[in-house]
């Protein structure tokens, strides 16, 4: 048995995933690259006596890495353990794709070139001469169409062949003057005792000439660094002078572009027909019609997500609570029983209920991305979003935020620029999620006339969105001051998405989400449960048990049980914390009950309503409960109610959302900032409005 390890590399949108899917007998494994939230797809298969393992790297435009995904791919290419590179290119845009191929060839490692989507090219009347291309590049070339399953299994055969040869037969050279400098510098690098691979030396030198920081870090510790550094400076100076260029990167860019151009001219017959993309684009990014069409798509997506997604919700809810009550009878009574059936299972169930929403939303987003429409949406909206320091694509996570913040954070992954993504995620909480609706409905019913309820609710939602955009603008101006905001984005041709790839992506999302629900969220639920049920006051318990037993009527019994629950919560750690933090909330009119309710909202926003119900001892209640509304009117004044609404609008989202944010953003500084700033902002806003209302005489 021989173990062959291969990596699959290519620019985005070249159909790498479809190729991986089309290889027969391959088994897919999904995980994350170590330490980052970048998905890692890996397939294993067997051919004859060979065990083959292919890692699919994230799409990468060039070895000058830019997005987090590209950094992961680049690091893997440089440091990873593998035997063969499979470079996938799109036949329709061969010239541009070949530039990455040329950068990869600098490594002089065994490599196979897969020219994908050749069916599309031929349909349009174009053609590629694979043998000629193979001769020019010095590596095997396979024409494939993942859609028609053409050539895919040949990739595996060639891979084994190349593996056996070990050496790369590629003999591409740059301009003589450049090669001279490479030669000189390689010579110095090879003087280093641990460095004896001339191919690797050549690659490092080329990267160093292009001012590649990551390679710089690697060679920095070599004993010959000083000599190399000096010689490098001189070489760069000579080359810049010779080519009259601003930087050596520019020289290499022009060189590679020229080589790619000449190769394409020799091997390719260009297609002639006007493409389907031209025709569709005339409508979809039409200066006037474009925006309404986009808004319609968005409206449809969210209708489907939250309407269709709500259908299985009840089933999931029912199944989970049935499971919990079944488990309650099985497990021995006691704390363990309680923590599992009252704490963990309902919390995890509440999260799993969002799974249908998330899957539908992601199916929609994947469809938009794979068909190529997402880039058009970004194109249409970028002008507007830019005013707030955001990017066109940020629209989608922001609108998703009105449904649920958890999938919205995950949807922010469509933003490839880390800064754009971070700013978007930092303001997502201001888009009011659907779980906050019960709280608003309760307070509006209690403190506003029915006629203006709709307007108030609308104001809350629009106010949140406007606040979010303003905060985005401020964050961009303060935290990322003066940094360039590059927006250079490929508009891929429209394509029919592959069902298989869609299904695979969905399966990956579901798996990762369930994993998260089972770990992060279950843990958080356990803590909240513990804080609200401990310490047990035995005296109180005995006292009420006696009272309840003695109670004559059923209503009396229920009233006593509610009273007991309220007292119990008051004495619990959560209640104690509420009393400790009461002084913080006192300036905005909150008593300890509202403080505890606000805290419990961190578990899930709906919980605010049920906590208030418990604390005001009205038992089971929802936002339409008259008793609760009356109790609120008796105990809270208007300005406090408004302050609470403002707090709910702005402060930290629920733990499920927060843990999603933590999982998506690895930097501790940002995590800390994200945990603190919305709460400070919420308090300040509530304080301002509370005192303004006081001045106005409310």
């Amino acid at each position, binding site marked *: 048995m021989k173990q062959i390890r291969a990596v699959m590399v290519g620019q985005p949108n070249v159909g790498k995933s479809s190729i991986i899917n089309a290889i027969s007998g391959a088994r897919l494994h999904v995980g994350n690259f170590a330490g980052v939230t970048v998905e890692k797809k890996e397939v294993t298969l067997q051919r004859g006596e060979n065990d083959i393992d292919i890692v699919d790297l994230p799409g990468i435009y060039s070895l000058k890495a*830019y997005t987090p995904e590209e950094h992961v791919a680049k690091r893997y290419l440089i440091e990873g353990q593998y035997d063969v590179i499979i470079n996938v290119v799109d036949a329709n845009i061969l010239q541009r794709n070949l530039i990455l191929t040329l950068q990869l060839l600098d490594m002089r490692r065994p490599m196979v070139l897969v020219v994908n989507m050749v069916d599309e090219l031929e349909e349009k009347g174009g053609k590629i001469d694979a043998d000629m291309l193979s001769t020019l590049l010095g590596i095997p070339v396979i024409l494939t169409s993942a859609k028609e399953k053409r050539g895919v299994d040949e990739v595996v055969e060639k891979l084994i062949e190349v593996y056996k040869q070990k050496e790369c037969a590629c003999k591409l050279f740059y301009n003589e003057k450049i090669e001279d400098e490479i030669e000189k510098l390689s010579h110095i690098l090879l003087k280093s005792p641990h460095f004896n691979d001339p191919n690797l030396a050549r690659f490092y030198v080329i990267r160093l000439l292009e001012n590649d920081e990551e390679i710089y870090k690697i060679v920095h510790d070599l004993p010959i660094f000083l000599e190399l550094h000096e010689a490098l400076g001189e070489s760069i100076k000579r080359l810049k002078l010779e080519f009259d260029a601003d930087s050596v990167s520019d020289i290499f860019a022009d060189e590679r572009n020229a080589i790619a151009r000449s190769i394409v001219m020799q091997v390719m017959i260009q297609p002639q027909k006007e493409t389907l993309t031209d025709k569709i684009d005339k409508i979809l990014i039409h200066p006037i019609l474009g925006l309404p069409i986009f808004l319609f798509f968005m409206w449809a997506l969210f209708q489907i997500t939250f309407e269709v997604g709500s259908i299985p919700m009840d089933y999931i809810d029912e199944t989970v609570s049935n499971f919990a009550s079944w488990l309650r009878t099985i497990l021995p009574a006691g704390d363990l029983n309680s923590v599992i059936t009252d704490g963990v299972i309902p919390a995890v169930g509440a999260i799993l209920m969002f799974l249908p929403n998330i899957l539908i939303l992601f199916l929609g987003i994947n469809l938009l991305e794979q068909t190529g429409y997402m880039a058009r949406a970004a*194109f249409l909206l970028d002008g507007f979003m830019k005013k707030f320091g955001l990017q066109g694509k940020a629209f989608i996570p922001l609108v998703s935020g009105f449904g649920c913040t958890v999938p919205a954070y995950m949807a922010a992954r469509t933003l490839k620029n880390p800064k754009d993504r971070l700013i978007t995620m930092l303001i997502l909480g201001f888009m009011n999620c659907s779980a906050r609706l019960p709280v608003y409905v309760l307070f509006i019913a209690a403190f506003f006339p029915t006629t203006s309820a709709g307007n108030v609710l609308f104001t809350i939602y629009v106010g949140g969105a406007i606040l979010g955009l303003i905060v985005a603008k401020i964050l961009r101006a303060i935290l990322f001051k003066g940094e360039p905001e590059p927006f250079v984005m490929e508009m891929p041709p429209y394509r029919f998405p592959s069902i298989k790839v869609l299904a695979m992506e969905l399966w990956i999302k579901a798996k990762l989400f369930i994993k998260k629900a089972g770990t992060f969220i279950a843990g958080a639920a356990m803590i909240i449960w513990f804080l609200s049920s401990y310490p047990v006051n035995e005296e109180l318990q005995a006292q009420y048990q006696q009272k309840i037993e003695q109670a004559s009527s059923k209503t009396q019994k229920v009233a006593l049980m509610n009273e007991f629950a309220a007292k119990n919560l008051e004495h619990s750690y959560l209640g104690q914390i509420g009393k400790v933090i009461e002084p913080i909330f006192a300036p905005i009119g909150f008593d300890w009950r509202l403080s505890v309710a606000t805290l419990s909202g961190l578990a899930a926003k709906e919980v605010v309503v049920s906590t208030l119900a418990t604390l005001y001892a009205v038992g089971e209640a929802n936002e339409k409960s008259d008793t609760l509304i009356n109790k609120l009117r008796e105990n809270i004044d208007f300005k406090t109610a408004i302050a609470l609404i403002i707090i709910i609008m702005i402060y930290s989202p629920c733990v499920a959302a927060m843990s999603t944010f933590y999982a998506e953003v690895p930097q501790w500084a940002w995590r800390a900032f994200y945990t603190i700033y919305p709460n400070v902002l919420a308090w300040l806003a509530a304080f301002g409005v509370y005192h303004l209302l006081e001045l106005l005489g409310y």
Partner: protein
Amino acid sequence: MKVTQMKIGQSGIIKKITAPEPIKSRLFAMGVAKNNRLTLLDHTIKKQTWEIEVEGTRIALRKEEAEGIEVEP
């Protein structure tokens, strides 16, 4: 002339690209390099976002980046 001075549908050969890193490398990686043919496909009403085509790739850019690309018709 600059890309921002072109008319929709007009094309030309790229002569010079002025942009800070990492935008410049990104443009190169997308095929915006010297001597390639560029066609202006579209821009939004307010001319904030521009769509160009270079050697078969369609690219969206902002006004700031589009201004840095010079072509010869």
